[in-house]
């Protein structure tokens, strides 16, 4: 049974290899190869899951040692897989959602002549992501970690002819690299401290080492998590990442990859538990991000960017939960899974809308689409209800638990975090309602006006044929796209309930993550009530602003906060001024230095020797008598010197 684990990764990897090296002759069938292999991997996942369920809770861990990777004295990095409940959860999420999105892409990318490569990249991503979650040591995890980074780079920049896309891809990779720095330093620290970086030994010996070291390691891991999961201060790339095709946004930048950070923190729970200061930092990051993302989400008119903001903030929730320690781990993962469902669903819905609207992304040019694309409307709506935490839907359970846990942290920080979480819930309700209203309700602002906002020239070839004519004809997407949406909608409706009833999910994960009920100052019921209130407030305001009034199809100037939020709260401008500009200046001046100083010194020496030569050469003036003089002088000096030698 263990041997299946490798196949999890192998299947999509094979797909990637075949599709990327296969050449044009595979163009016809490429997408199906990719999709099938994704499902194959999912099938393996299910089999393994069944196997795990067959075992009793304590022995639900499969290990597979493939080969010794980098053996150097003392430094043992092996290719070993570990499949426990935590990994299993992710495997199912990744392969499940992944397969669905493969299916969806078959329709979505239909008109792109580079579809084969797209599926190659998707498979590559699946392989890397699976490797990430089933690795048994941090170095192998690092491979998956950067692997998904690469896949995301390739997919964000999939339409490379768009400079914006290429730039976004580069930005994503670079910001992630900063995070990766944290991860690699963390691994070095582990090696220096424990002499290994395999999960088992490290967690086993956490007790034997100082808290300082652990805090350092934990913070470095957190840095990595921030990079991957777009947490403040490394969140800036996620918004731009929406340049990628929508399925990519759904799979990578909503459901799976961006949650890797949460996985890392939860997986390293042992370390964090032993480093309370680090945990505090984690919670703070989470809280800040969940507000940050939410605020940004409120201001964006680009539907995908709005969703991206929401993703950011939802992951903020998860990180917050993860930061709470054993109280929160389980709920972090649970929210992660449910979020995987509804956010993927939302993105696919958005994609479907764009598909019907000639790739228009500006919500102000939508409106009243519900009767044109009913399926999309319903699935999107369910996802919407789920994310705002409408009672009974999955978001309700998972988010609610996190808020409780935040309060349960106890003490002042407990209150503060809880408050933030509640506030976040309210804002979430607001911006999601806004998206909903602007897209599906209100009058049809796309009528009699050419779409295609000039600043975003046609991306998808889909637009290129039924492209430039005056107004779009909104239409429902083909089955191959709607089916995945429906499935995901189902998941986002019932997932939460299924997990929470009888604490199924809790019992499933507890062996790995451990669990403890905090001492909550407020009862669960109260929290739920408060959440409901926030929910209603949020929805209410949104309805007041966007449901009642008509939405201007050109964005009003808006308040200072709005304008700031539109620009990701000026965080990008900061990056640009400080890092980009500063970097340019630095490099330019260094180039100058290298040329004038380092090189100049050498050339200068050479030149001076040449000059000296020129001067000495003039002594050779061609007159025999002056030569004689030098000889005579030389002789005199010679004699004098000899005598002097004797004298001294």
């Amino acid at each position, binding site marked *: 049974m263990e041997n299946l684990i490798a196949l999890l990764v192998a299947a999509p990897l094979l797909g990637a290899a075949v599709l990327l090296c296969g050449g044009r002759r595979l163009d016809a069938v490429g997408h199906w190869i990719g999709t099938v292999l994704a499902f194959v991997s999912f099938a393996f996942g299910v089999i393994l899951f069944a196997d795990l369920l067959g075992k009793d809770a304590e022995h639900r861990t499969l290990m597979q040692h493939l080969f010794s990777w980098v053996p150097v004295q003392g430094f043992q990095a092996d290719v070993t897989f570990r499949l426990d409940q935590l990994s299993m959860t992710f495997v199912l999420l990744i392969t499940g959602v992944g397969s669905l999105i493969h299916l969806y892409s078959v329709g979505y990318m239909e008109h792109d002549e580079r579809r084969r490569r797209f599926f190659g990249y998707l498979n590559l991503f699946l392989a890397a992501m699976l490797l990430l979650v089933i690795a048994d040591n941090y170095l192998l995890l690092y491979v998956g970690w950067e692997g998904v980074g690469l896949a995301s780079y390739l997919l964000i920049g999939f339409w490379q002819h768009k400079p914006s896309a290429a730039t976004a891809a580069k930005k994503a990779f670079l910001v992630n690299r900063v995070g990766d720095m944290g991860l690699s330093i963390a691994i070095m620290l582990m090696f220096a401290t424990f002499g290994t970086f395999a999960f088992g030994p490290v967690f086993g010996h956490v007790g034997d080492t100082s808290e300082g070291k652990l805090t350092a390691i934990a913070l470095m891991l957190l840095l990595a998590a921030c990079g991957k999961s777009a947490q403040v201060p490394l969140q800036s790339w996620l918004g731009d990442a929406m340049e990628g095709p929508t399925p990519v946004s759904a799979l990578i930048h909503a459901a799976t990859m961006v949650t890797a950070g949460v996985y890392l923190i939860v997986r390293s729970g042992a370390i964090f538990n032993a480093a309370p200061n680090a945990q505090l930092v984690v919670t703070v990051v989470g809280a800040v991000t969940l507000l940050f993302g939410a605020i940004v989400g409120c201001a964006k008119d680009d539907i995908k960017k709005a969703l991206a903001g929401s993703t950011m903030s939802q992951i903020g929730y998860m990180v917050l939960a993860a930061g709470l320690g054993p109280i929160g781990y389980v709920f972090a993962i649970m929210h992660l899974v449910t979020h995987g469902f509804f956010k993927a669903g939302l993105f696919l819905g958005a994609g479907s809308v764009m598909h019907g609207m000639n790739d228009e992304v500006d919500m102000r040019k939508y409106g009243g689409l519900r009767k044109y694309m009913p399926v999309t409307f319903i699935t999107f709506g369910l996802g919407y209800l789920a994310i705002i935490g409408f009672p009974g839907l999955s978001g309700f359970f998972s988010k609610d638990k996190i808020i409780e846990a935040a309060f349960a942290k106890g003490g002042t920080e407990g209150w503060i975090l809880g408050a933030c979480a509640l506030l976040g819930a309210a804002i979430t309700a607001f911006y999601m309602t806004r998206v909903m209203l602007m897209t599906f309700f209100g009058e049809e602002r796309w009528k009699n006006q050419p779409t295609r906002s000039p600043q975003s020239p046609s991306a998808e070839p889909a637009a290129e044929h039924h492209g430039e004519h005056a107004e779009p004809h909104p239409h429902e997407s083909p089955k191959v796209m709607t089916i995945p949406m429906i499935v995901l909608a189902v998941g986002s409706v019932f997932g939460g309930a299924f997990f929470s009833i009888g604490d199924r999910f809790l019992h499933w994960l507890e062996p790995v993550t451990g669990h403890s009920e905090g001492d909550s100052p407020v009862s669960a019921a109260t929290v739920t009530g408060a959440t409901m209130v926030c929910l209603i407030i949020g929805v209410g305001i949104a309805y007041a602003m966007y449901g009642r009034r008509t939405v201007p199809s050109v964005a009003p100037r808006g308040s200072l906060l709005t304008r700031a939020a539109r620009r990701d709260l000026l965080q990008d401008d900061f990056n640009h001024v400080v890092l980009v500009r500063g970097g340019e200046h630095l490099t330019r001046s260094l180039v100058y230095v290298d040329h004038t100083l380092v090189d100049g010194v050498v050339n200068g020496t050479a030149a001076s020797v040449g000059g000296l030569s020129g001067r000495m050469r003039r002594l050779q003036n061609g007159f*025999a*008598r002056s030569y004689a*003089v030098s000889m005579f002088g030389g002789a005199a000096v010679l004699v004098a010197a000899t005598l002097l030698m004797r004298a001294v």
Partner: protein
Amino acid sequence: MNPVNYLYLAALLFTIGATGVLIRRNAIVVFMCIELMLNACNLAFVTFSRMHGNLDGQVIAFFTMVVAAAEVVVGLAIIVSLFRSRHSASVDDASLMKL
């Protein structure tokens, strides 16, 4: 009188000769100054031989004369050919090659 004085004389002659080489332009004169230096050497040899009371020095003097004669032959040949082609015996005129 003290033979050492002859040595002083020799040194004096030698210096005169050397100075001549340095300051005179005409190749012939320069050459004569060199001959003068050689003769100064001869004087020194003879004097030393006298002082040491052996004949080596005097024999050497003869050798020197022969060598000087040979030098004259070669030297004059060269200088004359130079003079014929340049119509001047000035050493300084012969400075095509420099630097």
